[in-house]
């Protein structure tokens, strides 16, 4: 039976954060949330038929956004029920929902668990009020701490929090404090990102005019290396470039992306990867509604990779993980002579210390992780 992951995009927030380039609209009225949910249901129905997915086994579901925690628990339950009409849920299914601290409380957390969500990803970003304000977050540091206390007490088998670093005038001491705060709550899973600003976000201009206020690449590298060491000493595995987990708490939904697994994405701006094709839905909410209403597919972009692109992408995605990539995996999917070239490249990078080779397995060294972009470019050739 076909096995896949499902991503559900919820494109609404209380307000837009100043660094965020995900598709989201600042609408909190339930009416529009429900209207949107109905539209997505339509889309799911069509795509299941179109892609012949009926009866497929879902190994993970991810409700991302936006702020999906604006949904009422019963709405979330309805979504999960609706999915059960089309798919079988694997017995070990991972159902993650992103939550923002200001939109949930103890009761809501427990209700979400009751309707089937078994993993929460808490959008913390920072414990420092100055940085929360800078990022334009809706939550205060008190709300953040409150919710994390609830998470510790709750019965969730897994949960995660996000942190952002490389913020303006962020000292090493401040960064140490952030990591120490994290360790107070000991989340099973943790994502660490450096602030990356797309030209579309309000903070981009700020960064453009004040590049000097951000930590230098040297400092960033140092912050990241320090955090990695500290977290590893505390029992976390650095299992992907920007993700850390206690043993067994890795995010299976995301691992599926990095292992070039198939997934169905629904909702505004969601991507799917099915049968070798990458497809993207429209990024405009208005357009999405119009298309669904007219019975038109919301897909506005589609690509099917050339074999050489696919091979490079496959290696690059796998190299993001600590597992890395094995020769035998490649041999099951690609022609030997195509692989040879890439292996030579991996071999060369391992001689230079950017990649570690263990038997037939290749993975990024700590030095390699910091310059992963450059390594990936080498592999693209």
């Amino acid at each position, binding site marked *: 039976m076909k096995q896949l992951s499902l991503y559900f995009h919820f494109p609404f927030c209380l307000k837009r954060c100043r660094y965020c380039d995900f598709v989201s609209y600042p609408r909190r009225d339930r009416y529009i949330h429900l209207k949107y949910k109905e539209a997505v249901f339509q889309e799911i129905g069509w795509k299941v038929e179109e892609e012949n997915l009926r009866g497929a086994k879902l190994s993970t579901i991810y409700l991302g956004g936006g702020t999906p925690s604006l949904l009422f628990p019963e709405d979330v339950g309805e979504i999960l029920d609706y999915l059960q009409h089309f798919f079988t849920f694997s017995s070990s299914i991972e159902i993650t929902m992103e939550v923002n601290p200001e939109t949930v409380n103890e009761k809501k957390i427990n209700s979400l668990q009751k309707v089937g969500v078994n993993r929460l990803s808490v959008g913390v970003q920072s414990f420092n009020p100055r940085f929360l304000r800078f990022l334009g977050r809706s939550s205060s540091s008190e709300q953040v701490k409150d919710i994390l206390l609830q998470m510790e007490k709750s019965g969730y088998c897994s949960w995660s929090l996000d942190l952002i670093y490389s913020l303006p005038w962020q000292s090493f001491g401040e960064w140490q404090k952030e990591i120490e705060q994290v360790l107070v709550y000991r989340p099973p899973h943790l994502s660490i990102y*450096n602030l990356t600003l797309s030209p579309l976000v309000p903070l981009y201009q700020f960064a453009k005019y004040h590049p000097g206020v951000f930590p230098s*690449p040297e400092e960033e590298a140092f912050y990241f290396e320090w955090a990695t060491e500290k977290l590893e000493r505390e029992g976390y595995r650095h299992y992907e*470039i920007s993700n850390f987990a206690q043993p067994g708490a890795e995010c299976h939904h995301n691992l599926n*992306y990095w292992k070039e697994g198939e*997934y169905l994405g629904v909702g505004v701006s969601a991507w799917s990867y099915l049968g070798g094709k990458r497809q993207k839905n429209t990024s405009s909410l208005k357009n999405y509604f119009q298309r669904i209403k007219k019975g038109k597919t919301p897909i506005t972009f589609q690509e099917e990779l050339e074999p050489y692109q696919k091979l490079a992408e496959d290696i690059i995605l796998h190299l993001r993980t600590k597992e890395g990539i094995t020769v035998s995996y490649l041999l099951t999917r690609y022609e030997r002579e195509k692989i040879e070239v890439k292996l030579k490249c991996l071999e060369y990078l391992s001689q*230079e210390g950017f990649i570690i080779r263990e038997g037939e397995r290749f993975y990024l060294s700590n030095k390699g992780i910091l*310059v*992963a*972009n450059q390594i990936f*470019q080498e592999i693209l050739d």
Partner: protein
Amino acid sequence: MDRNKIRNFGIIAHIDHGKSTLADRILEICGAVPKEKMKEQFLDRMELERERGITIKAKAVRVEYFSPSRGEKYILNLIDTPGHVDFSYEVSRSLAACEGVLLVVDASQGVEAQTLAHAHLAISQGLVILPVINKIDLPSANPERAMREVEAILGEEHLPFTLVSAKSGTGIEELMEKIVQFIPPPRVEDSPFLRALIFDAVYDSYRGAIPFIRVKEGEIKKGMEIMMFSTRRSFPVLEVGVFTPEMKEVNSLGPGEVGYVVANIHHLEDSQVGDTITSPSFPAPSPIPGYKKVKPLVFCSFYPVNYEDYSRLKESLERLQLNDASLSFETDFSEALGFGFRCGFLGLLHMDITQERIEREFGVEVVATAPHVVYHVLTKKGEILEVRSPRDFPFPSEIEEMEEPYVEMSITLPTEYLGGVMDLCQSRRGIFKDMVYLSEHLVLLRYDLPLAEILLDFYDRLKAISRGYASLEYEFVGYRPAKLVRVDILVNREIVDGLSFISPEENAYYRGKELISRLRELIPRQLFPISLQAAIGGKIIAREDIPALRKDVLQKCYGGDITRKRKLLEKQKEGKKRMKAVGKVRIPQEAFLAVMKSEK
């Protein structure tokens, strides 16, 4: 055709003083171009010319003008001339086809160095000068001052000035009448020979090179044979015609007339600006005087950004050469940049424009190396070398003597910037010659300067120091002794071809140091540490290091990011491919261009 009703004239002006707009108005008043078809600056046919507001190639248009005061119709041949010093040979040839010129001066800017140079050129050719003060409707216009300055440079009073605004059309009728009144009809000597001057040419892929000519004596007709004086090759005339401004066939071109000849000419050397056309069966005893083969003064190499474009680059240079006799090129090879062409130009603008035309008209992206001059080196063995590129420069121990080209630079500037401009000239090894006050506020300064010193940023510096008010003009005056060294740049201990440069000994150390600190900024940090060194003949004079890249990582990459990130990586990868690899190091083209801009 009644020869007395012909007027051949050109327009000379400093850049931006409104020459092309004035030409437009003249065409318009003569009805040559219907108003609705009138694009701004009709004569500037090349897109590049329109954008930069300058004329690169000379052109000619024949229009009919009915003079209301005389009640008669005249044929006017307007011969447009390039406005820049680099093209002064072309200007002189264009002027040779005229009897008079309109000397256009901007009423607010006044006289500039180029106005002066061109005016003197016109005087030396015995042309009638009609001064035109343009842009009189600008709030900053000071026509009185401009007129006084023109009188000062021409050394004459009571000139027949016309005050116009080419933009609004004010004064144009008056100017037209003056053209007819003051510019004489072509002088024609009765002669049994055919002599016609080539003052420009265009290339047409079907009809070959088409010379633009002014017939001095005799007549050219379809069906006859013509011969080029310099190559002695003959061609059958397929068509003769005039510019209206579109090409229009006519039966014949007689003495004093201006037009074009189609004669199936497919080699550049058979259609050289300045050459004389005569008849093979009854050749004139001598050509029209003044023809010279122009010698390029400034050299640089062009390399295609993409290796595959090499043959297209060659083709585009050949095509450009067809109507630009002053452009020369030969094959060149650089370890860093691959195969390319070493090209010779009249000056910096000529170089710039050639590069832009290659990129724009032929779609070939090129890397240009530093512009340089030809040095003369006398070796200890007694050989005289023409050193065109840093690569040909001998080892210091082999050199007996060296010399470099000098120019005489004329700069006009408002008096308040005199100090700064003189400092600039001194710092560029300039030798002061003289200084003349053109008016109370305007000074003409003359220096002898090594040509190499003005190739880099002299013009920009001059403009900056004088807040844009100074203008310059220069003329080659010959070779003089010099003390020079070659500075090499080593990247990870390998000499990088294309980064070397020849420098006067006195500032080689400073320039080497300056260049590598710029390279340090321009070469991106890479996976490996990079050392940069500047050296003279094996002796290291400066060093900088670029540490290895510490961090370059795509932070998050989930389902929706994969395609975007892959495209981003592919794009970055493409960018890297365009860089030149020296060992493990990739050097971006900006680094090579930095040698060009290296400040002193």
